[in-house]
């Protein structure tokens, strides 16, 4: 393939061209929640380093993580965790060749949103004592 053609290839997923469908939004959310969880994995490592360092360093990390803005972000991260987990299972089903047609993809998408909402509410309730 000539170099020019390669360089001029469009960026995916052509946001300006396609009309947003339910499944498109879900696909975008999978990426966004994935990126958010990438940041969370770094937060987790920071938290572990502080814990390994000792009570003093841990107290600083805990104070930052327990601040109101971080609590809101961590609650959002919990929602992202559940969405990415359930939608990831949906992706694995597709990889196995299951549920590929349009109506099935819409239905499984609705199921993922419902399960993620339910699991988020339940675990937020469980986590409440750590947040309060």
């Amino acid at each position, binding site marked *: *393939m000539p170099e020019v053609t390669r360089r001029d290839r469009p960026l995916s997923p052509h946001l300006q061209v396609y009309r947003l469908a339910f499944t498109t939004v879900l696909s975008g959310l999978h990426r966004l929640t994935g990126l958010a969880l990438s940041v969370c994995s770094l937060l987790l*490592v920071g938290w572990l380093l502080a814990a390994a360092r000792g009570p003093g360093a841990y107290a600083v990390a805990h104070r930052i993580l327990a601040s109101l803005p971080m609590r809101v972000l961590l609650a959002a991260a919990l929602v992202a965790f559940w969405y990415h987990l359930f939608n990831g299972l949906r992706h694995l089903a597709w990889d196995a060749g299951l549920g590929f047609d349009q109506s099935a993809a819409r239905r499984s998408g609705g199921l993922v949103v419902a399960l993620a909402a339910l699991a988020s509410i339940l675990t937020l309730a469980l986590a409440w004592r750590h947040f309060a």
Partner: protein
Amino acid sequence: MSAINQPVAHGKAAPIGHATRHWLYQRTSSIALPPLGLWFLFALLAQPDLGHASVSAWLARPLQAALLLLFTWCALWHSSLGVQVVVEDYVPGRRRAATLRVLRLLHWAAAIAAGYALWQLALGRAG
């Protein structure tokens, strides 16, 4: 076929040179992560509190520390593969290789730091 199946050109910085391997690694890590992630979430929520004493007592148990290390490494591996795809889609031209290199380094550093931290915690050396 060959026209659309050209590998993305990002030079020597490519963490994984071949799309099939990337696909396989992304799936392997995504099969491992749901059980590990659920274990981590519920183990964390089950702690009496999240003070240093509770957390260091929890992770001074070698099996618990090993499980958390496995989760953290799988999550970082999956994250590295995931952000690579996003960068390939949205960062054009010469900046792509540099961005991928920085992100890969960041993930390696985090993985090593997690190993060090959990090693210290498992040996009960945390304060």
